[in-house]
């Protein structure tokens, strides 16, 4: 890596790698965490990582389409959070646990 080049700005690939890292961390949380709310937050984290990729490529292509896509992702994420949290409330009420491993049957 030519360090002098860094004076002219940050390479887009750095943003992409950052996004990949965030995504991987989010996925790790999804796989390893047991609290259903934390798992849900890790999903949001992954969505955010993907948004960063959209924005980075939007900058690279000098087009606004990536922003639009991010906008839609945000809106859908907001809707998803509302429904998801309502589901979590219901699950908690029915089973009085937030441990995702205990919520492993589809019966009753």
């Amino acid at each position, binding site marked *: 890596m030519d360090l002098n080049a860094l004076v002219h700005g940050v390479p887009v690939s750095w943003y992409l790698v950052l996004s990949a890292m965030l995504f991987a961390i989010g996925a790790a949380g*999804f*796989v*390893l965490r047991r609290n259903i709310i934390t*798992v849900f937050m890790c999903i949001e984290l992954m969505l955010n990582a993907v948004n960063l990729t959209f924005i980075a490529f939007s900058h690279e292509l000098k087009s606004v389409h990536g922003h639009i896509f991010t906008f839609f992702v945000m809106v859908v994420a907001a809707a998803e959070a509302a429904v998801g949290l309502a589901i979590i409330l219901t699950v908690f009420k029915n089973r009085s646990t937030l441990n*995702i491993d205990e*919520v492993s049957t*589809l019966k009753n």
Partner: protein
Amino acid sequence: MQNLWIIPALPLLGFLVNGIFGRKMPKLMVSLTAVLSVVLSFAYVLFVLSSAKSLDQPAVEHYFTWIQSGAFNVGFDYQVDKLTAIMLLVVTGIGSLIHIYSTGYMAHEEGYWRFFAYLNLFMFFMLNLVLAANYLLVFVGWEGVGLCSYLLIGFYFTKKSATDAGNKAFIVNRIGDFGVALAMFLIFITFKSLDFHKVFALAPGKPVATLTAIALLLLVGAAGKSAQLPLYVWLPDAMEGPTPVSALIHAATMVTAGVYLCARSSVIFVHSPAAMDTVAMVGLATAVFAAVIGLAQNDIKKVFAYSTVSQLGYMFLGVGVGAFSAGVWHLVTHAFFKALLFLGAGSVIHACHGEQDMRQMGGLRKYAPVTFATLGCASLAIAGFPFTSGFYSKDAILVAAHAHAPWMFWVAVFTAGMTAFYVWRAYFMTFFGKYRGHGHPHESPVSMTGPLVILAALSLAGGFLFNVPEILGKMFQVEAEGAEAATLTYISVAFGLAGIGLAYFLYVVNSALPDKIASSLGGLYTLVYNKFFVDELYDVTVVQPTVNGSRTLLWRGIEHYVIDGVVRGVGANALNIGGVLKHLQSGNIRSYATWVVIGGAVLLILMGVGGFAFAGGVR
């Protein structure tokens, strides 16, 4: 911008209000909403047409891009030109009258709000159809009016015959719609667009074979919607619906959509002589065929239904011989007098407490004078009596047919005679002689007779008030209308008068004779009386094989042995494999997540190994 969208939006609003709140609203509000939405729409049409500068060139209004997928770009566009203007006037004008009429006719029916909601929805789709500026939007209207027609035919859904008739109409129309869909595909492949102006601009340069294929496919659609041979069978059965529906949808507006489509696509048709000939032949054959069946029907609405089929055949004849404007002219005048005939028939049925068999009527001229007079005007018009509306338009078609091929003229003019005969037969059976039914017939309320009077005036004077060929002017490229031949006019009038005279002789002067003739004709009469057994024929050749074939081959054969066998085999194996794999389906979300991550990793690795084929596509 003339805000054309307001025209269909008003009935849509009426539909929404009546459809959502109608159940709870008082009848007055329902009828007010329905009637007002259509009348306002009519008023707005008048406003648009009066404020339009010139209608020679279609003024396209783009509202938004509806579908965009690669090269496929369809906008939500409306346009208005002279053809559309005429259709708009007919649809909203007649529609308004029939809405008013319906408030009286349907006053005591269950599901009053439902009826008006459907009727408004129909108006919306019909207006969408005539306003559309591309084929796909036309198709939306096309399907929509089919849907409303189905809903309204089956309006009395507790009656098996009504729901059957609705199904029949729907299924038969599907065949036609299939044709239209194929035609659209072909149009898009050929022209890379579905917009009218683009298609018509490019049409002259395309190979004749392609244009013929498009035109014939469109004809299939038009034949389905406009009840032409061989797809006419649904229309007579459609009379199961309420009479205003028969008048509006199955006489005045929807069934003419096929004619409209042909006239709209005239550019494609004129470049394909073969297709034009097919259209003319189909039209002529339908006209004759339906007229013959009409001779022997006893149900008053059936008589008019077959006459509708026959008159539609006329319009196709006009279109087929190149006289598009004559065809459209007949469309307009037919809308006047056939709507009137049906509304009059409705009034008669209303008068006779729901009786539809003409053998149970008679002598009604004393009981229902207004109906008697107005229906007389309509009958004169359909018989082509001089200077009534039907006279002008029919004459224009006949002259054009003569210029195209003299034999067509003779067949058509003979059919005109038959038309005059059976319509007047119905007229005489209904209004002359002694009353043969039960109860006391009575005249209908003003809300029903009012539209009758207006339509009667239009039937009489509509011909020279709306000189459609003059209005349309140079709209169509080829106008094959021959020189005005007075002789031809005399012949057609003579045939018409002869038909009326024969009917008078047989059903008023000597009313015992028809039965004798019928019995002497024997088998032939039976054949005609049973509508040439076409329905039975279709039943044996198409419906039964389909149903039985499905039952035996598809159900017992393929479904039972092949598919079920495969499924059972898969099931049995799945059980074994599942025994191994069930450990994967732990119900544990984290396990699933792990598998997703593994899958993602494998996918990425494969992409890396595969050289990431789309890497070059970034720039």
